[in-house]
């Protein structure tokens, strides 16, 4: 009997994909609606709370999705446990850093 988190990774991958797909469609519609874009329009757009929340959810989905995907690739191809663990930690640390950075970018102003 093995570890019981295989299904969680698989679910996270699918749910995050659905969230990203939804937001991409929504965001494309918003962009088309405000075409042609200027800096001012872009700034007004991103001052709206719902768009900031949507973008943050999209990015959280992206980082979770990337984590499961990178973990899958490393599990498939890197068979030395020590090196795999090291690479997984590197991926996790970078994605966490990106996640924190994305919070700052979206909510700073």
């Amino acid at each position, binding site marked *: 009997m093995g570890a*019981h988190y295989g299904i*969680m990774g698989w679910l996270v991958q699918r749910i995050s994909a659905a969230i990203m797909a939804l937001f991409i469609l929504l965001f494309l519609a918003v962009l088309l609606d405000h075409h042609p874009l200027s800096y001012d329009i872009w700034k007004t757009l991103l001052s709206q709370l719902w768009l900031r929340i949507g973008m943050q959810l999209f990015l959280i989905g992206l980082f979770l999705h990337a984590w499961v995907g990178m973990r899958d690739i490393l599990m498939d191809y890197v068979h030395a446990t020590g090196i795999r663990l090291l690479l997984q930690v590197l991926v996790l640390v970078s994605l966490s850093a990106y996640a924190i950075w994305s919070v700052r970018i979206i909510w700073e102003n």
Partner: protein
Amino acid sequence: MRFSIYRFDPDADASPYMKDYDLALEAGDMMLLDALILIKAQDDSLSLRKSCREGVCGSDAMNINGKNGLACITPLSSLKEPIELRPLPGLPVIRDLVVDMEPFFKQYRSIKPYLINNDPPPETERLQSPQERAELDGLYECILCACCTTSCPSFWWNPDKFVGPAGLLQAWRFIADTRDQATSERLDDLEDPYRLFRCHGIMNCVDACPKGLNPTEAIGKIKGMMVRRTV
């Protein structure tokens, strides 16, 4: 007809090589295995497995022009020349077209391919309704030839950890069986990140199966059952 066949005798050869054979054949409905038997009459050092010669035993699975299949039910007329024959990929070669099936069967055994039912055996058979029995269609027909599992890159990379399509099809065969009482233990056993979840759904198994079975669908059903009991 020209054949190019993978040859390797670990006692004599430093490395494997491809050897060409020519057969003068009349056009007809010969199967590839018939041609191989004629080639073996020419060169009896060629090793291959065969038994039933009608797609039931699964012994003569090999890589035929790049695709896994059974020589005995592959019509020669369906193949482009030169016909390139290699052993099943991803398993250790014992000699020529003969591979060591142990890594495959080890994974098969690991899913406990037998009915687990702790009730006292009844006087008669454990009956199923026709609908319950129909759940096993497309599962019980597997002949364990290993065409699917050895066409699966996830099995090539992790043959010691990933059960592979044939084993997972059989895992679902027993999960789906209403007479089996070990469903949650079977799901527990498959829920780690390797045994089931190395499957990325590329469907090489479906493409390779000479019996037309669908391991990817069975794997999807196992995942569905895990989702239902998790969320």
